[in-house]
C-alpha cells in the first residue's frame, strides 16, 4: 500500500553568497554564538588516525566556487553513525576556492542490502546558484566500487572514478568536485 502523505516538504532555496552569516558567522566577524557548528567531526583526532582531505568545487566554466559550504557526514572507524560526532561544516576559501577537512577514515557501514558498504564520507554542498543542495560521496578505492553490488546495478563504471580522491599518501587526499564537463562528479538523490 502506498502511504499518502499529508503535506509536501518545504521547497529548498539557494543558500546564497552570504550563507556564512548564518552558518559560519565568525568568518564574517560576528562572534555572538557559543560555538560554531561542525568545527571538527571528531573530538581529539590523534595524529595516528588523522586524514586530511582538500579540494575545490569547479563550476561549468571550470572556475573554483569560492562561496560554497560543504557539510560532511560520516561514520566512525567501526562503521557506526552517532548523532554527536561525524559532522563537519567547512567553506571554500574566498580567494582560492579550496576547502580542507581533517577527519578520520570512516569504517564500513552495513547498507540496506545487508552487506558491508565500502567506506565513504557524504558531502552535502550548497552555494549561490544552487537551488537545491548537491549530494555526493567520497569513497577511497575505485576497486571497492567496482565490486560493490549497488554500483554494479547502476551500471556507471566509467564514472566511478569521480567519487575517488587523488591519493597523495595514506593520510592525504585531494577530492575535487566537478559540476559539469568530462569529469562531472556523480551526485546522488534519495
Amino acid at each position: 500500500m502506498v502511504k499518502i502523505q499529508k503535506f509536501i516538504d518545504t521547497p529548498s532555496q539557494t543558500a546564497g553568497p552570504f550563507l556564512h552569516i548564518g552558518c559560519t558567522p565568525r568568518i564574517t566577524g560576528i562572534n555572538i554564538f557559543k560555538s560554531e557548528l561542525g568545527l571538527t567531526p571528531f573530538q581529539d583526532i590523534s595524529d595516528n588516525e588523522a586524514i586530511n582531505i582538500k579540494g575545490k568545487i569547479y563550476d561549468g566554466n571550470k572556475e573554483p566556487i569560492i562561496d560554497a559550504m560543504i557539510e560532511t557526514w560520516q561514520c566512525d572507524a567501526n562503521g557506526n553513525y552517532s548523532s554527536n560526532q561525524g559532522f563537519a561544516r567547512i567553506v571554500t576559501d574566498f580567494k582560492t576556492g579550496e576547502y580542507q577537512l581533517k577527519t578520520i577514515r570512516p569504517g564500513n557501514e552495513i547498507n540496506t542490502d545487508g552487506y558491508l558498504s565500502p567506506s565513504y564520507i557524504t558531502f552535502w554542498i550548497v552555494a549561490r546558484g544552487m537551488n537545491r543542495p548537491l549530494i555526493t560521496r567520497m569513497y577511497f578505492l575505485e576497486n571497492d566500487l567496482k565490486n560493490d553490488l549497488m554500483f554494479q546495478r547502476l551500471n556507471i563504471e566509467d564514472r566511478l572514478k569521480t567519487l575517488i580522491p587523488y591519493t597523495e599518501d595514506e593520510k592525504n587526499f585531494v577530492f575535487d568536485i566537478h559540476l559539469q564537463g568530462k569529469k562531472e562528479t556523480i551526485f546522488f538523490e534519495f
Partner: protein
Amino acid sequence: MIKKHQPLRKFPDYKSSISRSPNKEPLWINSSSSEMSGPLFNEKIINKNDNNLTLNFSKTGEKPLGQEIFVHGFVKDENGNNLKNVLIEIWQANAGGKYRHQNDPSNIKLDENFGGCGRFITSSDGYYIFKTIEPGAYPYPNRGIEWRPRHIHFSLFGSMFLQRLITQMYFEGDPLIKSCPMVNSIPDINARKLLVGKLDLSKTDEERILGYRFDIILRGRQQTYFENKIEGS
C-alpha cells in the same frame, strides 16, 4: 524523476544556476544509514538571546533600525507531526538590504546594532520563534539588475541528514516575489506559496512588533511524489 515541488537545479532565468548545476541526471539510490542518521544539537549550544536579532548583536542594547517582527511557526514532518529538537539557523540583510558580509558589494550602511543571524531549537511541540526586523529588498546582477524580494534564509537540521534543508522565507504581499527566478525555479506553483510567511496579526503586540507565521515541513524517509497534495489546494 522530478520532484515538482522542489526547484529545478538548472533554471536559466537564474543565471548562476546554469554553470552551478550538473548536466547529468542525479543517481537515485536507496537511503542508507548515512542518510537516516544525522547530527543532533541540543540547548547547550544556544544562548538566551540567540533568537532575538534585535538584541543579539547590539553592544549597547540599542535596537537596530527597521520594522520589528516576530517570525514564528511549527516544524513538522510530511504527516503533520511536530518535530522537536530541530536546530534552525537564520540569516538576513538589514533594513536597508545590506548584509554584514565582506563580499556584499552594496554601499548601503551597515547597522551597528544588527548582525543578521540567529539560532533556535524547536521545543517539544515543534514550535520556534525569532524576533528580528524586516530585511530590505536589494538589487543583484542576474539578467541585468534584478531585485530580490525581502527574505530571511532558514537552515534546518532534522533528525536525519536526509531532512537537511536550506530555504528562504518571503513576506506575504511582496510584489517582488512573482518575478523572482529563484522562486520561479519551483515548477509547482502551489509549492511556491509554501515559502511565503503569512502576516499574523494574532502575534502583534503593543510594542509595535508585527507577526509573521511560517511553518516548515521536512521530508521523510521515502516520498511518494505523485500522491502529494498541498493542504488547501
